[in-house]
């Protein structure tokens, strides 16, 4: 007689066999030890599985013990944390970001463009430690995300994130999508000859661009070098290596460049993010000048105010309004004339030549390189920095608790995390620059840079949570994670305050955290590799 197979035995045990077949099997097993043994083993396996699955191996998390109702879905702890966060964000906003934004608005920058400004200054501007805008910017982003989190009941998490990112990208893309612009794309040289006129906005992507004729509209250029010798009736917006404006621009000049030279006339404002900036003696700017630059030589005439965040500034021209310069060094030459207030903030005493004519005495504020451990402001600032890091961590915990716990786990893999972190830290900016230079990739480049900055900043949150867990032991539930995050971040903040090595520690923490995040994300994308 034939033996019964495993499937039939299992179906028999589960009561899934037809009555007749079941009777056959019963009869067979009475005489067949082999099938009896199989049946016994399978029944044993069924009990064994059930036992293993039903066993109460871990306690039910405290937050699940009581049903969630609408009234207690926003507990008081949260309201307090949220209130604290809002207050912190508001302080940062009203003290630092808003005044700067107002300045920019006067220059014709809209809110969307401020984002571009903040994104670009990190990459190009040497002195960004001075403004710490990144921190404040992230705090604001977090604030927005927190609001979205509260609304998320009707939203899927990643949909929310996608919507936010999408909106940001749209905001970045929108400002200058001119409706019916003339478009040129190529690798070589583009020249608009003298006498030629483009009666439209002109957008050019090329290697070398020369404008000798007239553009009756805005000029937008992505190129290696741009030289404007002719006439542009609108704005000039340039993402180039070398930018030189020798002709006449009736609108604004906004440049993201390595070197910017102006020896022509600009009727409105000049805003520049450049490594080297030069306003020649022939340069004439109608309104304001906003500079984020490594080195700036300013010898031309500025019709209104000058605001500069520069590594090294040489001023030897005319400023009809006020100037406000935040710089490592400032030299004021003998041909300088300033009609309004003159304010300087920097690390070194300014050098003022004897011939310089300042309508008002120069107001000097020397910032010491070393943190001022005796001042209360320093500790208040540290507390604010802790607050913004905590806000970012909180948003991450709410949005992606799974990613946080995965990342915290991969922090233990020290070597891999640090390796990945260092690699990403160096490689990402290179990738971003490449993406930005190739015209098509500028959106991708900016988005990558944005994620990169968030990743670096969030690094301390992961390490913070991990540290907190090392100190207090692993906790259960979101509340415990928040506590550990807060404690860990405080420890990191204190370490950051250690003289000399604090900065190094912080860089190390961010690198490690970024790497751990990358490893965790890799595991998420490749669960098989993780199990192996």
């Amino acid at each position, binding site marked *: 007689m034939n033996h019964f197979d495993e499937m039939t035995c*299992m179906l028999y045990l589960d009561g899934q066999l037809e009555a007749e077949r079941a009777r056959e099997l019963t009869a067979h097993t009475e005489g067949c030890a082999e099938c009896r043994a199989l049946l016994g083993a399978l029944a044993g396996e069924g009990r064994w599985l059930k036992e293993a699955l039903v066993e109460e191996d871990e306690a039910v998390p405290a937050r*699940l013990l009581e049903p*969630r109702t609408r009234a207690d879905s926003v507990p008081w702890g949260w309201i307090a944390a949220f209130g604290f966060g809002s207050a912190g964000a508001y302080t940062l906003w009203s003290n630092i970001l808003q005044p700067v934004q107002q300045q920019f608005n006067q220059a014709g920058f809209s809110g969307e463009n401020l984002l571009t400004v903040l994104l670009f200054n990190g990459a190009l501007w040497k002195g960004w430690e001075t403004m710490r805008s990144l921190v404040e910017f992230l705090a604001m982003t977090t604030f927005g995300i927190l609001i979205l989190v509260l609304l998320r009941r009707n939203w899927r998490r990643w949909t929310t994130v996608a919507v936010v990112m999408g909106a940001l990208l749209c905001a970045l893309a929108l400002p200058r999508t001119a409706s019916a612009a003339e478009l040129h794309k190529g690798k070589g040289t583009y020249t608009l000859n003298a006498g030629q006129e483009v009666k439209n906005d002109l957008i050019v992507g090329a290697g070398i661009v020369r404008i000798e004729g007239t553009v009756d509209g805005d000029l937008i250029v992505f190129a290696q070098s741009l030289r404007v010798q002719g006439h542009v009736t609108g704005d000039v917006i340039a993402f180039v290596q070398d930018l030189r404006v020798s002709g006449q621009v009736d609108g604004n000049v906004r440049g993201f460049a390595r070197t910017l030279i102006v020896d022509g006339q600009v009727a409105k404002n000049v805003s520049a993010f450049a490594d080297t900036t030069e306003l020649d003696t022939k340069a004439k700017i109608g309104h304001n000048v906003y500079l984020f630059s490594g080195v700036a030589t300013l010898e031309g005439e500025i019709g209104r105010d000058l605001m500069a965040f520069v590594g090294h500034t040489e001023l030897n021209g005319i400023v009809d309004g006020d100037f406000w310069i935040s710089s490592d060094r400032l030299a004021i030459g003998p041909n300088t004339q300033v009609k309004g207030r003159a304010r300087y903030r920097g690390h070194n005493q300014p050098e003022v030549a004897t011939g310089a004519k300042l309508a008002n005495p120069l107001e000097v504020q020397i910032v010491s390189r070393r943190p001022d451990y005796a001042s209360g402001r320093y500790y208040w600032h540290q507390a604010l920095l802790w607050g913004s890091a905590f806000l970012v961590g909180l948003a991450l915990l709410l949005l992606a608790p799974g990613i946080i716990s995965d990342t915290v786990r991969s922090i233990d893999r020290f070597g891999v995390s640090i390796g990945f972190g260092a690699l990403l830290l160096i490689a990402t900016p290179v990738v971003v620059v490449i993406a930005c230079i190739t015209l098509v990739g500028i959106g991708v480049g900016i988005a990558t840079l944005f994620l990169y900055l968030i990743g670096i900043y969030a690094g301390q949150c992961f390490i913070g949570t991990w540290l907190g867990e090392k100190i207090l032991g692993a906790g259960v539930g979101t509340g415990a994670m928040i506590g550990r995050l807060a404690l860990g971040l405080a420890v990191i903040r204190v370490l950051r305050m250690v003289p000399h090595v604090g900065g190094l520690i912080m860089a190390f923490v961010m690198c490690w955290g970024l790497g751990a995040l990358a490893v965790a994300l890799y595991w998420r994308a490749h669960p098989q590799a993780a199990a192996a």
Partner: protein
Amino acid sequence: MGPQKAPGEMSAAEMVEALARARAGSSDAWGEIYRQYAPAIFRFCRRTLPTREDAEDATTEVFMKVREKLGQYDATRPFSAWLYKVATNHCWDMLRRRRVRQDLETGELETLPLEHPDPGQLEQLLTKSTSQEVRRGLAKLPARARMALVLRYYSDMSYDEIADALGVRRPFVGVLLLRARHQLRETLMQSSLAGAHPLSPRGKL
């Protein structure tokens, strides 16, 4: 049905009564029902989803759904069966959204021959493996195999209910379960060969 009916807790009659009150809008009655079933549903989610956080979120969301849909519940059927159905759909959706589709496709599973087990060897494996090892082995299985075992041996679902929950034909449920049992045996066998503590969680020292 379900492993959660511990003695000393709510009786069937109390349950019916609490359900009726909860449907009428009583928060207290809902609280009683919640406390009765939340631990079981949490464990269910914990067995089917990859992380503890996922399981916590899923539990909360399942009960929110159940409360919203309480009006649609057919009181002639067991409540726990309905509850598990909601939970299963929810967890299955979550897994599907996470792109675990590669193991949702049926295809070759039906055709692959299964090696006939040696009852003695199987018995040996059963006595050797602890419950904890079984659960860890289970966590390594593809989502659908894991889901099938949990539905059958944790939630006590019938073949019909499993077929319905996983969206497969009823005769295929047996294949799915047997295949999953084989995969689990292989996993446990491999890890017991691999060393003394082969199943320690990754990353922990």
